């Protein structure tokens, strides 16, 4: 796209637009008022002929901003995919004729609506500049894996198989992690009947054999700075010796710590050596190596064992884990098999409340355990007495009675605690220019927002999104394995392979200067005007992805490849110095300012609707498809995220004479749906401050409403607009019409 601006406005008459609207009038407005350089109407713009017409103008007339005034930007997207130019969509189908009745009395306001959308499209086009490379892009096909357990080793091997270099860092002296401490693992393939080899040795051998993988054991990460494509990582050995590696992406596979069973004295842990955790039983099984397992207290061969499931888990009790660790039911079945396989006469009882062995393999393995004679009893354990032999007191829930067992050994299925480093909400980052690594941190990120990844529920570094399990709040850094979510080996292997893909993708995105999803492929990039910046730090603090650092002078430092292009920084900036080439305070602000505001006495209010492009805008589109009507006074502008809404847009709108403003963003709070994590929440917060402005202007605060709107709010979204129209009817028109 050339810098010399040439705007083409193309008005479609198809899908009934030509029948309902005076497109000629719109064309005149585009040309005379909005000053588009080329204006054309077409009967059917999205067909081959219409597209060819536009392409011809691009090729021959030098049109480089294309304003298509037709259907929603969500429709016919591929047809209007022109290379090298900015494409803007004015929505007069879903946005106008489909939400307005086809009646004579509605005609005038409907036409006004379409005319405004014409103005808005041309003005939006005017404020597009061609995305230029930031100079930060670069390809570094090398990734760092932190953690040498099954997840980390798998990620390293799988990435290397795709042709990438890997540096694998493990804090222990040996690779293997928790799985390396196991005697055997739960089977992963048909017939799911017997415990199988952990596979750790094979993974170690594969790593050894692969010259694309470099391993650092007894080492930790003491500093990580940079961004995807250009991370710089300090790896420090136990001896204190530090090397620096440059990598393109990072996988954090830091695993879990076993839950501290000392919190469970009621279950006899710590009181008798014959009460052990699952991981401790693995050590006993390893020592027995297929022979009879001996109990720790006196070395007697175990003849009876009770497994207590959910020990310290799924409980709100102080010091317990509120979640289920997912793998323990299968693990207990596997461990019971250790006993049964060595000697079928050993009594093995699993006390459970819900036996969780999901999927095809899980149920087969449960049956295999039963076939081997493992007894499963639905019951809750109240106490394990340790004086004079073990006594497990429990309530048998099926026989509905309190009873007890006196086994030689008790195994507690305690859960996992993620090894997720420091909680950045609690541990402040060093000031810019100063650096000190934190021994409790896994990554020691030199990011302004903190040293590790933000934690989700229960301390896991998980994604909050069901559809996007690898969504991360630090672009280019992916967690894999049980640090992300409680999981078994099988899932950890899948997870690590997926994380390796995402890392590779981050490397390729960084190389091209492309955004990661949800704005995949976006090449624009936020920049700021240093002269205007007041160093208020709002952008650094509010960026949901920690993409912005501060330099030693305390100016913001944008990192392109960490940025997700949501515009939350732009919305935050009180002096409006942050903008994207294709999305800026002006690209929206000028649309707002350049509509026609009728005279106060015309009784034609104007309502500005700023709708999140992810959920609210599609909801309005679908309402239109269903033929749900809404007020002809609304002017809807899609925004990247409600977080990108700068309050200046709202004050400008009110100053320009709009009578009401409706903001529609995604769900915020604990179960947030905001695709940019905090955007909607920030917007709600900022709008709560708009009341002061309204007061200054002497306007009623009902004129600005902020809502959470879901993509399914097909009925509700139009209703919210109509509610505003009603409110205006009640409180009257804005006095600010000039």
């Amino acid at each position, binding site marked *: 796209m050339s810098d010399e601006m040439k705007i083409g406005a193309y008005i479609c008459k198809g899908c009934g637009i030509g029948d309902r609207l005076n497109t000629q009038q719109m064309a005149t407005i585009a040309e005379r008022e909005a000053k588009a350089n080329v204006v054309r109407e077409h009967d059917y713009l999205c067909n081959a002929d219409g597209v060819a017409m536009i392409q011809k103008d691009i090729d021959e007339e030098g049109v480089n901003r294309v304003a298509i005034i037709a259907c929603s930007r969500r429709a016919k997207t591929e047809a209007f995919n022109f290379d090298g130019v900015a494409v803007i969509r004015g929505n007069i189908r879903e946005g106008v004729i489909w939400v307005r009745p086809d009646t004579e009395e509605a005609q005038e306001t409907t036409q006004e609506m379409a005319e405004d959308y014409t103005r808005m499209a041309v003005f939006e086009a005017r404020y597009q500049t061609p995305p230029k490379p930031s100079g930060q892009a670069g390809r570094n096909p090398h990734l760092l894996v932190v953690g040498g357990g099954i997840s980390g080793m798998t990620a390293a091997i799988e990435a290397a198989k795709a042709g990438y270099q890997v540096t694998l860092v493990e804090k222990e002296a040996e690779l293997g992690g928790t799985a390396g401490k196991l005697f055997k693992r739960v089977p992963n393939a048909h017939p799911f009947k017997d415990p199988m080899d952990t596979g750790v040795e094979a993974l170690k051998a594969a790593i050894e054999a692969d010259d694309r993988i470099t391993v650092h054991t007894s080492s930790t990460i003491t500093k990580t700075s940079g961004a995807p494509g250009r991370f710089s990582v300090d790896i420090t050995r136990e001896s204190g010796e530090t090397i620096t590696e440059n990598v393109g992406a990072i996988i954090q596979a830091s695993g879990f710590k076993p839950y501290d069973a000392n919190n469970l004295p009621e279950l006899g842990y710590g009181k008798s050596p014959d009460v052990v955790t699952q991981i401790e039983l693995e050590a006993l099984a390893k020592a027995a190596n297929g022979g009879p397992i001996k109990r720790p207290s006196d070395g007697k061969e175990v003849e009876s064992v009770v497994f207590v499931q959910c020990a310290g888990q799924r409980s709100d009790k102080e010091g317990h884990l509120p979640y289920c660790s997912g793998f323990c039911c299968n693990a207990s079945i596997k461990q019971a098999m250790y006993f049964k396989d060595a000697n079928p006469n050993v009594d093995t009882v699993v006390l459970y409340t819900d036996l969780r062995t999901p999927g095809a393999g899980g149920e087969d393995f449960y049956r295999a355990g039963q076939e081997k004679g493992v007894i499963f*009893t639905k019951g809750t354990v109240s106490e394990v007495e340790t004086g004079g032999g073990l006594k497990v007191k429990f309530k048998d829930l099926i*026989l509905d009675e309190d009873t007890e067992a006196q086994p030689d050994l008790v195994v507690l299925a305690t859960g996992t605690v993620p090894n997720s480093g420091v909680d950045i909400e609690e541990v402040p980052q060093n000031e810019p220019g100063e650096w000190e690594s934190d021994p409790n941190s896994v990554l020691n990120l030199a990011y302004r927002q903190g040293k590790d990844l933000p934690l989700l529920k229960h301390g896991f570094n998980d994604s909050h999104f069901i559809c996007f399990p690898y969504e991360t709040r630090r672009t280019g850094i992916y967690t894999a394995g049980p640090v992300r979510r409680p999981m078994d080996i099988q899932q950890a292997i899948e997870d690590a392979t997926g994380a390796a893909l995402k890392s590779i993708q981050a490397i390729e995105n960084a190389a091209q200067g492309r955004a990661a999803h949800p704005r995949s492929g976006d090449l624009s990039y936020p920049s700021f005007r240093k002269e205007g910046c007041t160093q208020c730090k709002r952008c650094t603090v509010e960026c949901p992805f920690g993409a912005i650092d501060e330099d030693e002078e305390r100016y913001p430092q944008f990192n392109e490849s960490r940025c997700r292009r949501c515009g939350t920084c732009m919305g935050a900036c009180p002096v409006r110095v942050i903008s994207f080439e294709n999305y800026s305070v002006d690209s929206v602000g000028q649309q707002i300012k350049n509509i026609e505001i009728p005279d106060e006495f015309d009784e034609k209010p104007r309502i500005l609707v700023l709708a999140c492009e992810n959920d609210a805008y599609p909801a309005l589109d679908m309402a239109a498809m269903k033929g749900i009507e809404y007020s002809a006074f609304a002017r809807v502008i899609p925004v990247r995220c409600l977080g990108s809404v700068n309050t200046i847009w709202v004050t400008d709108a009110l100053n320009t004479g709009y009578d009401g403003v409706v903001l529609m963003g995604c769900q915020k709070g604990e179960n947030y749906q905001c695709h940019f994590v905090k955007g909607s929440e920030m917007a709600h917060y900022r709008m709560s401050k708009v009341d002061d402005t309204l007061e200054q202007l002497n306007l009623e605060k009902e004129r600005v409403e902020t809502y959470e709107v879901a993509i399914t709010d097909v009925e509700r979204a139009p209703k919210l607009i109509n509610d505003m129209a009603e409110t205006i009817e009640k409180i009257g028109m804005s006095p600010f019409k000039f």
Partner: protein
Amino acid sequence: MSNLNTQMIEKYRNSFLREVEANVEEGEWVKMCMQCGVCSGSCPFGPHWEHPPQEIFMMIRAGKRDDVLTSDSMWMCTSCYNCIVRCPRGLPITHIMHGLAHYAHRLGLAPKENPTHKFAIKFWDNLTRTGRVNELKLGLALYFMNGFSEGIKTSLKMKDIGLGMWKTKRLSPMEIVGGHKCKDVSGLHKILAKAREIEESKAQKFSG
């Protein structure tokens, strides 16, 4: 308490499940139950159970030997096979029930006054004597099971059916003097003796 019973208690100390697996027909299936209860819910005799099948299985696993073997529950089964058809784990529940009943009987623990238990004994004795069921004797033995006057009353009540059977040659009054038999009665008796011998030696051999 029978001698066999004491032997078995001694042998399977602490593990009634293993005792069941070794001595009860299809007993090795008991451990496969996952306590869904569909058998108990599907049984047409439902409300009359003291312990429905799934509970019996859990009791076996919990080592409740006396409660299980002296229960009249497994004598309730009428072999409708609803439970077998519906069991998601494929347990041959009907067979296990009969197996348990038989085992309890062998140990002398079966409830003495349970009518189906009594019927089973009478039926077996009747059948094995000649190798053929003597309908008349079996019927009368059942009518008089609970005393003479009860027997007279029941016989009178059933007389029309008896006459009907006689007319259609389903029942002969002559049966009372001996009745029909299979060709080689003594051969049959030898077979049955041998079968019992095998069964007992099998139980002895099983080390659990």
